[in-house]
């Protein structure tokens, strides 16, 4: 009994610590770096969703950049063509990408492993050309500029945003908005993973045959995972559009999809807290590697070498490491004396 109370207390403490870090983090970095943190938050949301699909359901997706494009363009199109306020488009962007994710999930029913990775990769590579082709809605190669075409709809344009009588700079606003949504998304993902749906996902991942024999509808489980994952990617895409105030085909190349998968795997498949580290990895490593040398190509070289090293040394990613470090603590808490 006392053990359980101690466990609950620890969880509460952890939750409070996370909230404190969330609220106070911008105070310790410059305004400019707050923007980088907000950008990392976009990655965080996208890879939490991707982890639900790849880490928990076992479906490899190299096409999540394209789902982010669906979200980003939904936001941009609603702001520019329909004059919506940018932040109110976020839910709709999530829904739109969720529907597209569901549709991608349909072909995925016939494919597994590497073949699914190839099919989703094809989708990611085709996206920029498609965005250029249907220029009426997407602005073609120029993209859509939120700031120039619909300046009144961009929140925080005047430099400050007033929320509940409390004003913050635009960068702080973007940080709190992104990571606020990120924390909610994390909580939802955590509830999904802990619940019935999460068990279904893991059963599909571990053995499709065994899952089917246990009465799980494989098609429904996989398409559900794709749709949920799509919602996360769409919300992330919408936030990216709001942060950069422009969307164009170059913001959503296949490199973005690769980056997201790298973040998920480095963070740790099947580990939600690891996604914070995964997001920071893909946000900051390219910048950090310019410190090694700013010569052409060196940052990419360092980035690639880091991915290979992590895969060889930590095949379970940072999440696996976290779990191993926390193991002595958690086993003591949950084992009866």
């Amino acid at each position, binding site marked *: 009994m006392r053990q359980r109370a101690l466990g609950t207390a620890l969880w509460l403490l952890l939750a409070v610590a996370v909230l404190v870090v969330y609220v106070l983090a911008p105070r310790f970095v410059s305004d400019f770096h707050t923007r980088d943190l907000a950008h990392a938050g976009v990655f965080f949301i996208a890879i939490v969703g991707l982890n639900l699909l790849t880490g928990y359901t076992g479906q490899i997706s190299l096409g999540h950049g394209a789902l982010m494009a669906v979200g980003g363009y939904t936001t941009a199109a609603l702001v520019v063509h329909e004059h919506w306020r940018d932040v109110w488009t976020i839910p709709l962007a999530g829904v739109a990408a969720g529907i597209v994710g569901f549709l991608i999930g349909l072909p995925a029913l016939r494919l597994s492993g*590497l073949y699914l990775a190839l099919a989703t990769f094809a989708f990611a590579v085709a996206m920029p050309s498609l965005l250029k*082709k249907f220029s009426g809605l997407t602005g073609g190669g120029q993209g859509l500029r939120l700031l120039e075409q619909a300046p009144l709809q961009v929140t925080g344009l005047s430099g400050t945003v007033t929320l509940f009588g409390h004003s913050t700079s635009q960068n702080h606003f973007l940080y709190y908005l992104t990571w606020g949504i990120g924390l909610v998304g994390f909580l939802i993902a955590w509830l999904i993973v802990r619940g019935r749906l999460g068990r279904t996902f893991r059963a599909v991942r571990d053995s499709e045959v065994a899952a089917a024999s246990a009465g799980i509808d494989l098609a429904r489980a996989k398409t559900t995972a794709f749709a949920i994952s799509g919602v996360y990617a769409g919300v992330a895409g919408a936030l990216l559009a709001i942060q950069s105030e422009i969307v164009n085909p170059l913001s959503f190349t296949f490199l973005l999809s690769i980056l997201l998968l790298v973040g998920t795997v480095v963070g740790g498949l099947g580990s939600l807290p690891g996604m914070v580290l995964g997001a920071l990895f893909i946000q900051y490593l390219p910048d950090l590697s310019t410190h090694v040398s700013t010569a052409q190509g060196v940052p*990419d070289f360092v980035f690639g070498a880091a991915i290979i090293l992590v895969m060889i040394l930590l095949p379970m990613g940072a999440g696996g490491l976290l779990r191993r470090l926390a193991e002595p603590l958690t086993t003591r808490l949950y084992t009866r004396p």
Partner: protein
Amino acid sequence: MLLAFDWTQLAQQIVIGLASGGVWATLAVALVLIYRSTGVVNFAQGEMAMFSTFIAWSLVHHGLSYWAAFALTIAISFLGGAAIERAVIRPVERAPVLTVVMVTLGLFFVVNGAARWLWTPETRSLPNAFSTRPIDVAGVAFSIQDLGTIAVSLGAVFLLWLFFRFTKLGLASRAAAVNPEASRLLGVRVSWMLALGWGLAAALGAVSGMLTAPALASFDQNLMQPVLLYAFAGAVLGGLDSALGAVVGTMLLGVLINLLGTYVDWIGTELRLPVALAVILGVLLFKPTGLFGRVSAWRV
């Protein structure tokens, strides 16, 4: 309308399609080689081929003739490919598919970064391997370059087939791919066979790169990225585990894309890549084993 249809143009476009298909075929066979031995798709294959092409450019730049540089580059690429396998693939040999895929994605960045580091970003060009003079076959003018490209790429694949079919080493590496355990018991050094596969794949990729570059007015470090995608599409069309399928698949794809690009205005040149990607999706959906692939079945 039908009378005005230009059969000469059709024949020319088919040969042009076969020529680009031939270049993709060599890279596609390289993908198949690695898929059969390692069980993964090597996302860095195109970048490795690009790196080889830059080595060839340096050799030509230092005064070698195209064909001397061609041969030397193939040898260097073979060693480089085998060395890459030893260095980064061997440690993850027994890891899940996704881990190995991530390593090849990491290689993509490493090789691309290294090429941009070692060679400045200016655009450069390779001399033409064949004369661009047209020759007349049955009243239709074909370019020697297109025909030569088809011949060299098919020749390279054919040599590789001879190696696998008729040498003891080829037999051993096929055995290692089909049944690693039994081969190990029979004395085949399975792990080294993987290195051999990676070396051969890198050499084939080098051929593909060195045939791609001269056809372009100029090239840079992104040279092979579209080629890799067409090779993916062709290999999937033919069946990822069949080398013959990869050749037939890429040739078909080359002709298909070239004809669609020529005769369907809506597709033109900008939608050529999406057509290839649609082929990937279509094949994976309706016949995942491709035209020549084996149906995989396993006991639960």
